[in-house]
């Protein structure tokens, strides 16, 4: 996105020595990065006013305005800015409560390399997505909406003494808003896990049902739609369709004798494959609606209509949002290339992309998730094939 100019990075920390240390650490990057340092949230907002930053990396606990409040403000005023927290805090519950506007948590102490990787990755994704100026569609998003009925079911399951992580996981899996939030939490660097977690039930075990209950009840973590909201029923239908796609993708991976980890990744990527649609419908409802109209007339595909009306496709926005939230590269790639897998570089059967592509090209139960054309040549090259309209094996 900004390959020509240097990247604007703004560091915020109330401890001057931390800022000095960061400045020295990234001294070498001064050609690529234009770095500014703010000793308080108020100073950071002033610097943003002067010149918006591409990435803000802020401490959490600061006198007066804290990191969560700062990033919330930045999300509203500069939606295209990527928002990171770099905190020495170890209190998981407190951090998770403030996850709203935060794309990723990084735990102090961290090496300059780790921070560099996290920043560079999101920028690389943004560059790959060929967003132009439309990246704010993904970055501005705090969280995906949660269907009220499923939210109530979750509360009931959390109150039920007999329910375990697996049962609670099955409820969460049916709602993409909750699924993305939970996986974002456990996959943020804060949890310090060596691998990415793809299964919702593993995420619930890591967070702990007691913590999850507390988080769910505070209402600050999940963006629950109101019952009478206009989009509520269509979101509910979309989430249901995506859960079906996820289940289908997992089945396909299993049929192809993939290990559990790949099946989990396929389920997750399949479930998240259509979040771009929710993001576009939420951020640009009118333009997205006319793109849908255009596509339904049969003159063009939905993706082309999206590109024309909005400048991006739903896969791109969805994939970028997942990247911002720290989801694994494989998931991001699978979502990004689900319709035209041959355009990526994925050639492995252990990657979730083939199963998501197969699932999307055979699923046709919902108008919200239209069936896509299978990329037969690419599938052939992997030794897979599809029979149109039925499950591949």
């Amino acid at each position, binding site marked *: 996105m900004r390959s020509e100019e240097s990247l604007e990075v703004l560091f915020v920390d109330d401890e001057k020595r931390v800022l*000095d*240390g960061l400045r020295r650490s990234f001294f070498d990057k001064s050609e690529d990065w234009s770095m500014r340092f703010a000793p308080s949230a108020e100073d950071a907002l002033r610097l943003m006013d002067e010149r918006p930053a591409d990435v803000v990396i802020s401490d959490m606990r600061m006198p007066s305005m804290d990191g969560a409040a700062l990033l919330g403000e930045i999300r509203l005023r500069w939606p295209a800015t990527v928002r990171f927290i770099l905190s*020495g805090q*170890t209190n998981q519950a407190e951090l998770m409560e403030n996850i709203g506007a935060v794309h990723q948590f990084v735990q102090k102490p961290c090496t300059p390399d780790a921070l560099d990787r996290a920043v560079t990755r999101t920028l690389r994704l943004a560059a790959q997505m060929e967003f132009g100026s439309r990246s704010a569609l993904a970055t501005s998003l705090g969280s995906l909406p949660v269907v009220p009925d499923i939210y109530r079911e979750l509360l009931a399951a959390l109150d039920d003494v007999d329910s375990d992580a697996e049962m609670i996981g099955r409820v969460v899996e049916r709602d993409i808003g909750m699924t993305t939030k939970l996986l974002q939490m456990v996959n943020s660097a804060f949890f310090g896990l060596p691998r990415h977690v793809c299964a919702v039930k593993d995420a619930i075990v890591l967070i702990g049902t007691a913590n999850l209950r507390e988080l769910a009840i505070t209402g600050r973590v999940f963006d629950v739609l109101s019952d009478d909201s206009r989009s509520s029923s269509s979101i509910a239908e979309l989430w249901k369709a995506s859960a079906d796609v996820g289940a289908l993708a997992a089945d396909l991976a299993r049929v192809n004798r993939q290990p559990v980890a790949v099946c989990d990744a396929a389920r997750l990527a399949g479930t998240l494959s259509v979040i771009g649609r929710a993001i576009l419908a939420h951020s640009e409802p009118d333009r997205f609606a006319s793109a849908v109209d255009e596509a339904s007339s049969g003159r063009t595909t939905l993706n082309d209509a999206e590109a024309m009306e909005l400048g991006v496709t739903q896969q791109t926005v969805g994939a970028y949002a997942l990247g911002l939230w720290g989801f694994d590269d494989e998931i991001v790639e699978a979502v990004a290339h689900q319709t035209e897998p041959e355009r990526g570089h994925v050639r492995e059967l252990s990657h979730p992309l083939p199963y998501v592509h197969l699932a999307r090209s055979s699923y046709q139960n919902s108008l919200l998730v239209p069936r896509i054309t299978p990329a037969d040549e690419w599938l052939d090259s992997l030794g897979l094939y599809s029979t149109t309209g039925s499950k591949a094996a």
Partner: protein
Amino acid sequence: MTEAMEQHQIDELLLEIQSEEAAREHLRQIHSRTDRLFAGLMALQFLAAVLAAVIITPRTWIGAESSVHVHVYSAIAIGGTLAAFPIFLALRCPGKTITRHTIAVAQVMFSGLFIHLSGGRIETHFHVFGSLAFLAFYRDWRVLVPATAVVAVDHLVRGVFWPESVFGVIAAAPWRAFEHAGWVLFEDIFLAYSCIRGAREVRIMAERRTRLELVNATIEKEVFQRTQELQAQTDALTREMEERKLLENQLVEAQKLESIGQLAAGIAHEINTPTQYVSDNTRFLEKQFSNMMRVLDRYAEQIDPDAPAKSWQERTEEIRTTLKEVKYDFLRQEIPAAIDQSLEGLDRISKIVRAMKDFSHPGSEEKEEADLNQAIDSTVTVCHNRWKYAADMDLELDPALPPVPCHLAEFNQVILNLVVNAADAIHEHAEGAPGGGRIVIRTAAVDGAAEVHVSDNGGGIPDDIRENIFDPFFTTKDVGKGTGQGLAISRDIITKKHGGQLRCDTVPGEGTTFVIRLPLDDAEPLREAA
């Protein structure tokens, strides 16, 4: 109601049975005693009969021949028989009905014997009346029946066949026997009456005594029960007091753990932050060291004799280029700062670790002389994270403060509670307009006491809750933010465990000062100041 009545009836029946038994027992005792009395009497009567026979008619003459009179022999034989059997019974089976009836018969037969031995003297007949009166001792009218019958039959038979023996005359009118029997019956009436009355009195007495015993037993039972209840109550109270003491200790411990739990996250943050910049700086120094070496290498080349000759111009150009490449000015400026800040960071970390060690000083049973200034400094360091976002901290610690005998761990806990409260008060007061918060901790020795003032410029304590602040579980903080135990436990620690004082001066809108006073002399607790 009916139940109560039934119970009452049962009680009455029981009482009757018990008193009946008691009466019978008493009568049995009377009978036995009387049996023994008669045994003695029988023996005496036997001796008396023999003596009477010997004195009255010792010898008998048939012509010139004199021999011992037959009376003497009959007195010995008959009297012996009469006496022996009742004595045997009285000793062998005292109290038995057969015994006293046998005695009754034997007694009146002794009367008959005496009458005969005295030659039918009318005065000797009084022995019969005496015997009957004696038999009335039994308080059993029935013994009078065989006795009277024997008397009557004896008089009748002897009056007819041997009147000399009973009336002292050769021939006696038959009605005399009936008259004697009539007089005997006359006496019997009175004696029987007194026997029946006596027996009834015995019964009444027995019932009274039984009732009394019953009441006594009831009272005794009640007293026993009461005593037991009292003992149980005392035991329960003792147990409760022990439990309370245990709970109090556990509460202090729990509050300490709670505050340590809260502190732990803060301490991690306090350590993670300097670790971040120490490691950043060290990595920076590592990288820049190679740059510096490049510069030094360049200089070293200049004095290398084997190096090719170069002009001064060339040499300066070479050095200048290298300095520019490594950004010499930047290095000059940053390296010393990076080293300084790294050392500061390491100092910071070691200070926190040391403070943690001081703060978590294990509690001891005995008070130890402690440096309160150092304790305060450590505690403030440990909870830095709890106040630094709310306030600046000023420590005005009097270096002349002498060592104070105290339980250091618990004193630390009190300081922690007060500092956390001060920070919260400032935070609440400054809601929306932060900055300017200030906590001051001052120490001094005043009048034999060490004084610690912990002041904040928060909102003060409103008048209406000022009296409650030391109450257990009283809190104005949100649920989950405080248990309301802090000040209650702090006061406990200062007053009860240290014999000191903890008071609170507050001006609503301006701030609050908590004052701890600890006695410098352990043996003299501070008296409650007016």
